[in-house]
């Protein structure tokens, strides 16, 4: 290699591995030196970022799929100096992609925050991790921050674990020293967030994409993915696959293609859970992975045919009811009723009350301070629809062809 080509700025990643292009095979974090050799430096000015994000079409990857350019503009429109919050709390038990990024390529995540800070004139960046689940990542991030040279006041924060802990207002409340529970909007964090300042809360993966769009531009970003949902996404694959883990795929990839990447199935599947516990079930192996089709925060669970969709869904519904922040009546009572209803079907107790479950599920949506009840509603309605035959069998015979076998993770988030 000539001296001239050594000095040339590195080129954009060509393949589907963009965020994961530099991941080390030994599982250790990519150092600052390795990171900047691979991707080059961030542009010196943040002036272009807003328009590049606009044309990139990047949407948030924490599950909400909100246009990133809109959120940035909302924060930019306020008159106080904003704060950036990197949301790496990842409360969804079936997701591990944000922690994988923080652990393996921390500088890509930090870069995204630096780019956003530069575009917004922010000086303070808080990286929020879950107290127990994110302990290892917190150490990696703290070490990575020491390698940075920007004029930024970094803070690595530890937030009590919980399914709703990463909801924007819950996160801001926790960072402000209050209980980490959602509050009613408005005010939104972009208006009044950490310490009362306008606050940009972005998911860790979202910021990693921002880091690359800042360098390589929106056209490059759009060269993969679909017209409406450009780019790649990280997906956490678990269940009956040979190599469960975090994969980077083009948006629009089919479930069957992703499952092949994950080493193929280890046994026949009855369905796949798309989008985690705020998502839904599908039996279609050609289902395309897009936010519009329920990808959520990027979760696929390959559900084996020998497991029982009714009992597993009842277990998840009970877990989700327990993860309610306990503030809003429809969530507290409705989610408990939905979980109890599914449990009764699973145990073949009582009459067929699927109509009532559907009515309750429809009723709890959009009636909380946050979207927790909406997500559970979607999950329960999808369970009732996709496992309709299994429900009928349970009601008639007290069981279906599946065994009681835990596939969906519901570890109590302490």
């Amino acid at each position: 290699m000539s001296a001239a080509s050594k000095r040339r700025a590195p080129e954009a990643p060509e393949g589907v591995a963009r965020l994961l292009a530099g991941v080390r095979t030994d599982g250790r974090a990519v150092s600052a030196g390795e990171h900047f050799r691979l991707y080059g430096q961030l542009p010196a000015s943040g002036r272009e970022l807003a328009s590049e994000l606009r044309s990139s079409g990047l949407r948030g990857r924490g599950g909400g799929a909100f246009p990133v350019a809109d959120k940035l503009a909302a924060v930019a429109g306020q008159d106080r100096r904003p704060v950036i919050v990197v949301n790496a709390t990842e409360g969804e038990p079936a997701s591990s992609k944000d922690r994988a990024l923080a652990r393996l390529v921390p500088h890509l995540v930090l870069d995204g925050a630096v780019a956003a800070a530069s575009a917004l004139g922010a000086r303070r960046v808080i990286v929020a991790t879950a107290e127990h689940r994110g302990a290892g990542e917190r150490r990696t991030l703290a070490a990575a921050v020491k390698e940075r040279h920007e004029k930024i006041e970094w803070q690595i924060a530890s937030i009590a674990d919980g399914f709703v802990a990463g909801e924007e207002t819950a996160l801001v409340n926790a960072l402000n020293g209050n209980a980490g529970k959602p509050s009613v909007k408005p005010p939104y964090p972009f208006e009044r967030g950490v310490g009362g300042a306008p606050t940009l809360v972005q998911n860790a993966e979202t910021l990693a994409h921002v880091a690359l769009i800042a360098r390589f531009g929106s056209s490059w970003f759009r060269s993969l993915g679909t017209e409406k949902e450009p780019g790649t996404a990280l997906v956490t694959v678990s269940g009956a696959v040979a190599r469960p883990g975090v994969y980077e795929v083009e948006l629009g990839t089919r479930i069957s293609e992703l499952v092949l990447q994950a080493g193929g199935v280890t046994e026949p599947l009855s369905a796949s859970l798309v989008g985690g516990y705020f998502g839904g079930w599908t039996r279609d192996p050609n289902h395309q992975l897009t936010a519009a089709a329920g990808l959520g925060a990027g979760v696929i669970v390959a559900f084996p045919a020998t497991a029982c969709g009714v009992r597993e869904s009842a277990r998840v519904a009970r877990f989700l009811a327990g993860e309610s922040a306990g503030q809003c009546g429809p969530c507290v009572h409705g989610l408990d009723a939905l979980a109890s209803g599914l449990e009764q079907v699973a145990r073949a107790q009582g009459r067929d009350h699927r109509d009532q479950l559907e009515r309750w599920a429809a009723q709890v949506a959009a009636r909380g301070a946050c979207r927790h009840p909406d997500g559970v509603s979607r999950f329960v309605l999808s369970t009732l629809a996709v496992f309709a035959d299994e429900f009928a069998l349970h009601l008639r015979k007290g069981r279906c062809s599946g065994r009681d076998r835990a596939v969906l993770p519901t570890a109590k988030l302490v």
Partner: protein
Amino acid sequence: MKRLRVDPIECDGHGLCAELFPEWVELDDWGYPIIDARPIPASLERHARKAVKECPKLALRLANTNQR
């Protein structure tokens, strides 16, 4: 035109709103209000204001239709 909004954290499910403004508010199986999201016609706004005023938790408000 106005819409009726409830603060779901403040609301304790007293149910007074459904008594005062049944045209726009029904109660779910646990006694919490399900509010019609449509704009309230001027002819009914009086009832809406009464419900807002009488809520024991002050959890109801009238919002302009262009507000979030």
